[in-house]
């Protein structure tokens, strides 16, 4: 009895410790962003939305936020069809070199981001598209595509292949089978992967650093540039913007797929 209670006590204190450690930086930064003082610190000196206001008024940040949203959306829009079809093909079609193709598609994972960044900078430079915004979206899609493929693959693997036969037996030609049975069945994986792609692109820094200049700078790069100058509480406010975006993504995921499924990593 005593030892059981002792065990529970130890377990609970560890859980609380972990939760606090995980949440503390976030809580600190949220608190700091509401300061009315001039320097970033916790606890904040007085409460105000001053730095959110300042952030909003700052042309550079707003434009960078807009560009990041554009780049992330582009990355996600490319990843959805490419990643879904690739995952389906890898899991379903008995292809020659399936294994090789799988490894090839996961290659971006094994290459350090610095290397990807430099090589894509050179490639886009040769193609004379460096300095435009859309190549950044393409690049972010490339480096993160394995996440999309993984998310969809796990949904495809959970799918009974007999479902497609059943649909055909019901009179559905192959394209209709795909649209009415296969796609809805793997939809949770597609949604999970898409949100993951969006968030990853929204946060991506290193590759973006190589591919952007002052006209195309995205939010993470902009933040980095600001830190190099002077650290003001508007940085804390930007961080809160990030936290809000991440929370929004989780909320969307919960509404569309159900968090239980996501946590079971279906």
């Amino acid at each position: 009895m005593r030892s059981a209670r002792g065990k529970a006590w130890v377990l609970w204190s560890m859980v609380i410790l972990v939760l606090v450690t995980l949440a503390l930086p976030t809580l600190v930064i949220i608190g700091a962003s509401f300061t009315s003082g001039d320097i970033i610190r916790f606890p904040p000196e007085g409460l105000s939305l001053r730095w959110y206001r300042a952030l909003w008024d700052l042309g550079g940040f707003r434009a960078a936020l807009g560009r990041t949203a554009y780049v992330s959306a582009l990355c996600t829009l490319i990843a959805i069809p490419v990643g879904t079809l690739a995952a389906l093909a890898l899991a379903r079609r008995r292809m020659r070199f399936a294994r090789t193709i799988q490894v090839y598609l996961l290659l971006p994972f094994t290459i350090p981001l610095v290397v990807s960044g430099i090589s894509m900078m050179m490639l886009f430079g040769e193609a004379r598209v460096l300095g435009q915004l859309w190549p950044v979206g393409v690049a972010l899609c490339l480096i993160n595509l394995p996440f999309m493929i993984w998310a969809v693959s796990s949904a495809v693997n959970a799918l009974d292949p007999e479902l497609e036969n059943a649909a055909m037996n019901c009179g559905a030609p192959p394209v209709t089978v795909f649209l009415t049975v296969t796609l809805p069945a793997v939809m949770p994986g597609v949604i999970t992967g898409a949100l993951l792609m969006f968030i990853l692109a929204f946060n991506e820094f290193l590759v973006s650093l190589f591919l952007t200049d002052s006209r195309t700078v995205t939010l993470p790069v902009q933040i980095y540039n600001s830190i190099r100058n002077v650290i003001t509480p508007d940085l804390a406010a930007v961080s809160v913007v990030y936290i809000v975006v991440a929370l929004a993504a989780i909320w969307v995921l919960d509404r569309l797929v159900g968090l239980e499924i996501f946590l079971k990593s279906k």
Partner: protein
Amino acid sequence: MTPMVELDNVTRRFGDTAAVREASARLERGEFLTILGPSGCGKTTLLRMIAGFDRPSAGRILINGQAIDAVPPFRRSIGMVFQRLALFPHMTAAENVAYPLKMRRFDPAEIPERVERYLELVRLKGFGSRRPHEMSGGQQQRVAIARALSFSPDLLLLDEPLSALDRKLREEMQLEFRRIQQELGVTTINVTHDQREALVMSDRVVVMDAGRIQQADTPAAVYRQPSNRFVASFIGMTTVFPGMVAEAPEGIGEIIVGDVRLPARLPAGGLAPGTAVDCGLRAEQVRVVAPGAPRPETTIGGLVERRIFEGDRLVYEVRVPPLGNLTLMVFDHDPATHAEHEVGARVLLGWNARDLFVFPKETTENATRQETGPAS
């Protein structure tokens, strides 16, 4: 009239092995046919070729007299109940049943009424708005039947859909399948490894083994006149033992087993004296003869080696010294009304001559490599 389904020397090879070898069979309109065999005998491969998910390596499949090799599965008028049911998880029961109607371009005004009618047929009235995961195994089974039938297919295929159910539900669903099939008169092919299911449900049974059709006949004939050793031992509990033909007129002849001569039913056409044969005796045809009771045609003494209580019957394993110490299985139904025998007891066994099956000896060569027709 042309048969509903005709298999014309259908063979399916996977690499070097043949899953189905030169299967030929005919299925008349409205018939309920069961393909029975152990797992890996090729029965499911055969079914999938009829459904169109697989193609024969050689031979033809005809439906309504038309060769259908070039017809893709979604243009065949075939409903199928899958082994794992394969209900669409993101659709309700009603949407599942409506799916084939939409795909086959039924008049949209007619669909809700049809869905309702078929849900009623499978006794699921009022369950239409449930999703598959909200239903019990038996209910899901019924949705799968309704989906396979709602578009009035020419042919219904059942791919062991009952194998996952527990025994009670399975026996209930067997009768349910039969009721629905007879109500609609739909031609049906069922695949199973369960001999009871095959005998209970079917008009005709096709017994398969090692890719080959061994026998195609009515349930009673498959049970009473098995055409070879495999069929005899696969259906029912049969003791198989070697013997030799002594005298061989048409009909009842004599077989030498161990030290004795036994009267037995010889296959049509007769066998030359001296031919080595396999004999088969079903446990339910052998009786323990009580002293003073009327004697069957053949009687022989033995020693009880084991007895197993199975509720509705006792199973004895009896060693018979004159038959070369052969151990025979014997069922004794309703043992409460007469004497039970302990292990070690001497008993008199008896059977009728026509119940002793005799088949020409099958060499391994015959059973596995012979290329023409079942061993005869």
